[in-house]
């Protein structure tokens, strides 16, 4: 049985193509389980997991919790308030306390970039990064890779356009790393205020118009635009954003005929993309969500190494 030979899963930047392949292959078996009527295997029976969410989350949290239940792991979910901010208990103390109760894997979402690395250094349990600030959201990256891989049968030499708020997006960063490692070409586009500087370091091309990015794209992924970005002066209004940078049928004409439309959710309909695209034939947005459970089951299995009996 193959496992991931690492304590933690913090980001796709540090993963090899072989490791990503192993997770994708394993996800396929897990996907089979989700399709069954009785969706439960005893693989992680007796193993305990903590879900620690310092930011609100619907789909990632539900997805991890269901993955744990389908695998028969015992889990507890804690909604953290960023206690360090209010001089309460520190993150390290919180997790060490739960660890003392026997937890061996911590899944954490946190608003600060690098928080998962910090935690991983400070506890013995495995850490799975469920999103750290603007840095990475590696399980989202994996589920996006898996969904495209399932649909297209390959990842290498696909052209993937990621459009929207690249600067603040951990989803974008994880996808860029994962896709690049698997041989895809990645381009990004968005207004300059929503692009991080020096994107060359990722080995990708950046454009300032959606049209330039989506030409001949096999996959187009729109990112969620947060309202706070307008308030901090990065763009003038949602309607201007929709007009200049929103995905619509017209713009998508430039992409390949069988282009896949993706979005990590939750969607602002009519802003990042029009509803007819989100709900139309090329959209694989809901399949992304299903893949999410499969990929997280695979990851838990590979990281915790199955039963230790």
């Amino acid at each position, binding site marked *: 049985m193959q496992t991931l030979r690492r304590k933690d899963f913090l980001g796709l930047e540090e993963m090899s193509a072989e490791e990503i392949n192993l997770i994708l292959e394993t996800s396929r078996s897990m996907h089979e389980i989700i399709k069954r009527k009785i969706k439960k295997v005893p693989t992680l029976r007796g193993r305990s997991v903590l879900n620690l969410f310092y930011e609100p989350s619907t789909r990632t949290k539900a997805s991890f919790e269901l993955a744990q239940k389908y695998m028969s792991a015992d889990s507890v979910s804690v909604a953290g308030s960023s206690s*360090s901010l209010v001089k309460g208990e520190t993150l390290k103390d919180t997790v060490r306390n739960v660890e003392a109760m026997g937890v061996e894997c911590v899944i954490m979402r946190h608003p600060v970039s690098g928080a998962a690395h910090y935690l991983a250094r400070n506890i013995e349990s495995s850490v799975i990064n469920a999103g750290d600030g603007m840095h990475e959201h590696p399980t989202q990256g994996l589920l996006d890779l898996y969904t495209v891989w399932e649909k297209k049968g390959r990842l290498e030499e696909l052209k993937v356009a990621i459009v929207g708020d690249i600067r603040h997006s951990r989803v974008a960063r994880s996808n860029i790393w994962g896709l690049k490692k698997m041989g895809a070409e990645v381009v990004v586009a968005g207004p300059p205020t929503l692009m991080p500087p020096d994107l060359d370091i990722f080995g990708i091309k950046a454009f300032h118009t959606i049209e330039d990015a989506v030409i001949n794209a096999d996959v187009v992924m729109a990112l969620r635009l947060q309202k706070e970005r307008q308030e901090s002066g990065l763009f003038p209004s949602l309607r201007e954003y929709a007009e200049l940078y929103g995905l619509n049928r017209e713009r998508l004409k430039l992409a390949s005929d069988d282009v896949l439309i993706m979005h990590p959710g939750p969607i602002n309909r009519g802003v990042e993309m029009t509803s007819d695209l989100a709900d139309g034939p090329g959209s694989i947005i809901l399949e992304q969500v299903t893949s999410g459970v499969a990929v997280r089951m695979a990851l838990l299995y590979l990281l915790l190494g199955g039963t230790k009996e």
Partner: protein
Amino acid sequence: MSKIIKCITGGRVIDPSCNLDKNADILIEGDKITALEEKITPPESAEIIDASGYAVVPGLIDMHVHLRDPGQEYKEDINSGTRAAAAGGFTAVAAMANTDPVCDNPSNVRYVIEQAAKAHSRVYPIGALSKGLEGKEMAEIGRMKKAGAVAFSDDGCPIMDSQLMYHILQYASGIDALVIVHEEEKYLSRGGMMHEGAVSSLLGLRGIPAASEEAMIARDLLLLKTTGGRMHIAHLSTAGSVEQVRRAKAEGLQVTAEVTPHHLLLTDRAVKNSGYNTNTKVNPPLRSEHDRQSLWEGLFDGTIDAIASDHAPHHPDDKDLEYDFAPFGIAGLETTLPLLLDELISGRNKKFNMPLLIEKLSTAPARILGVPGGTLQIGSPADLTLIDLQKDFIVKPDHWQSKSRNTPFSGRQLKGAALYTIVDGIVTMKEGVLSDR
């Protein structure tokens, strides 16, 4: 009571104040240097310090430290901070005003001076420019100067109100007060955690653009041009800052500048390579390799006058947090000299040499602050540092005199360290062991 006499013999004596670099003996009587000759025959009562094989230099002066006293003694206090200074080879430090309460009036200046009387190094208080560091009203610069403040700064809280800054520079010029500025356009750096560039993009940390420092330097140099007076720019960190100071000096403005060892030795890559270690979080942030190279150029061509640690001690608990939540700052009193000696001995920088290093760490700070020291000339205070260039030195924060442990250099193997620190003719540190002044 007769004066205690010491004779430091056989050392390589380096005194940038008079371009001296030769083997010589130094005689100390009481708290003064009374002779410097190739060979001194000391009186029998003299204590001999054999310095053969070592460098003997004017006592090092760190013109930018935070001693956290009063108010945050759990991070550092005047006792522990000056112990750290002595351990690191420093005979004097200049303490920033951002204490609690803020050092913005004469009685707080006097508090620092009184506490320092029994400390392990000299402490020169720096007063605040604005009351409470609030950037609203001018502090009593003149009265603080009379009480003993050697310079004035709102370090860490740059004055965003340009009119107030204009008036402060004008006022300071009238009483020959030195204004020290931390250059940061706060609106531009808002929310920033590290240098804005490729590495911040990779890490998803909010960036502090180089322009936030450069814009403020541009403003203050323009103001200084109008007002006249003396301005010292703390911790330069970008290539553009160096270039602006270079031009301002060429134009004849009375501006000086300093750089820290961490900006000379590290780049933003350290944040990534350390896995978001909060000991790399510092303001101004660690910049790009291009910036780093420019700082060395500025140091060599005289644009940058001094090296200062910006010793910013924090309690280990304060730094043991997520990156965004940890405070900015690197503690440097006990690493500054070994880091720079190691760089010098390694030969990585061909233009770097001992006289230049001592100029930047002693002679220039004394000149800029207008304080005694920075020289070994006869009649000067007997403030000296003896340096062992052969000593193997490992950075071990757990063994520090400082209460803090926050350094990104922990575990580094270095060559070179201070062997003796002597203040007023009294040995405050000998081979790592401290003694009272």
